[in-house]
């Protein structure tokens, strides 16, 4: 192939981008973990969720989340027969200590929520300093030593998954327990879920059971019309869930 000046100008940027992916290798903190070999996601099987709050408590303990703030939380939906488009949603203390008994009629169910680790995340796009980013293995993280606390990302997240940590005054959110999954463990919320309603998934691992599950079940993501590339998949999700 003849390489003239025009072709070279096209090829050089492409080669630079390719070289960046080659460099995306091993983070120092996890010597046996290759960033580009994973693409993390989560599966939430709603018919299995009992609203016990184990995930919320585990997340708080694992990640030192301040009281009154949540990286993950559980919502209880009440969908009355005549109110399907306007369900009542409650999450007392994030569902941390489970939910009080309820004898309201209609349809009732629990929905755990967390950062959706979007592939095209609005929160990373608005960060003015590059303090929040999508890692090469698909996890949206916050660099708290670099975050200004400007709150743009808090407003940009369509799922309400971010908050400003009152101790550090920086943005905070679910890190998909990045310090655990890079060590070969599952997330704290998945670890403690007593019914297996939450499962960590690696979409790049061909042996991960998620692939068979996605083939055989009807799963959805939250707010698909936002085109965020959300990677938290919900099985059995009612149409009233927002």
């Amino acid at each position, binding site marked *: 192939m003849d390489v003239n000046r025009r072709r070279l100008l096209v090829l050089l940027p492409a080669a630079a981008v390719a070289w960046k992916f080659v460099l995306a290798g091993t*983070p120092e*903190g996890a010597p046996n973990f290759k960033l580009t070999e994973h693409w993390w996601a989560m599966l939430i099987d709603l*018919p299995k969720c009992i609203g016990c709050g184990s995930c919320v408590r585990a997340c708080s*303990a694992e990640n030192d989340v301040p009281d009154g703030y949540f990286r993950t939380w559980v919502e209880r939906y009440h969908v009355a027969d005549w109110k399907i488009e306007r369900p009542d949603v409650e999450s007392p203390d994030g569902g941390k200590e489970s939910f009080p008994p309820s004898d309201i009629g209609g349809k009732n169910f629990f929905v755990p929520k967390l950062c959706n680790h979007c592939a095209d995340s609005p929160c990373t796009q608005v960060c003015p300093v590059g303090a929040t980013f999508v890692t090469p293995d698909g996890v949206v993280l916050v660099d708290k030593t670099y975050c200004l606390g400007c709150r743009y990302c808090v407003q940009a997240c369509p799922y309400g998954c971010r908050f400003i940590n009152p101790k550090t005054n920086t943005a905070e959110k679910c890190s998909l327990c990045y310090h655990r999954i890079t060590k070969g463990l599952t997330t*704290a919320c998945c670890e*403690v879920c007593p019914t297996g309603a939450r499962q960590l998934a690696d979409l790049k691992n061909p042996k991960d059971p998620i692939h068979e599950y996605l083939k055989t079940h009807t799963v959805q993501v939250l707010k698909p019309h936002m085109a965020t590339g959300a990677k938290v998949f919900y099985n059995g999700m009612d149409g009233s869930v927002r």
Partner: protein
Amino acid sequence: MVIALVVFVGLRAAVVPKTFGQYGHYRGAAIAEIAARPIAYAGHEVCEGCHTDVVDQKKLGRHVVVPCEACHGAQAKHADDPAAVKPPKLDTAVLCARCHEANTAKPKNFPQVVTADHSSGIACDTCHRPHRPKIEDAADNKKPTTEAKK
């Protein structure tokens, strides 16, 4: 012009972190820093390595699927130094109710009770053994299962 360019490049090199741009428009070292944080939950495989008698008991009942730290809380420190760090004693009246208190939002096939009617405030572990909750043999159910194998 050249001096301004040199000053700009010098200032940029001084201000921008070394690993900024390593993987994208962010500080590449942040990934390793976040990954290096210590864990709080050891994981059930670690617990099962020592508490084999509990594993045997759990296999006989429906709590076989319940991970250890769902009830016992974060135990990585205990796993690191079992002699120095002891897990706290649990209050079954609170703990069991979190999962088994009746609620219309729970799956219909999940075992639920109205605790006020079911036990009248008596602690659950008076009758049920947490690792094997079905009451089958009263004498067998009294045996403790919480000591780790030496």
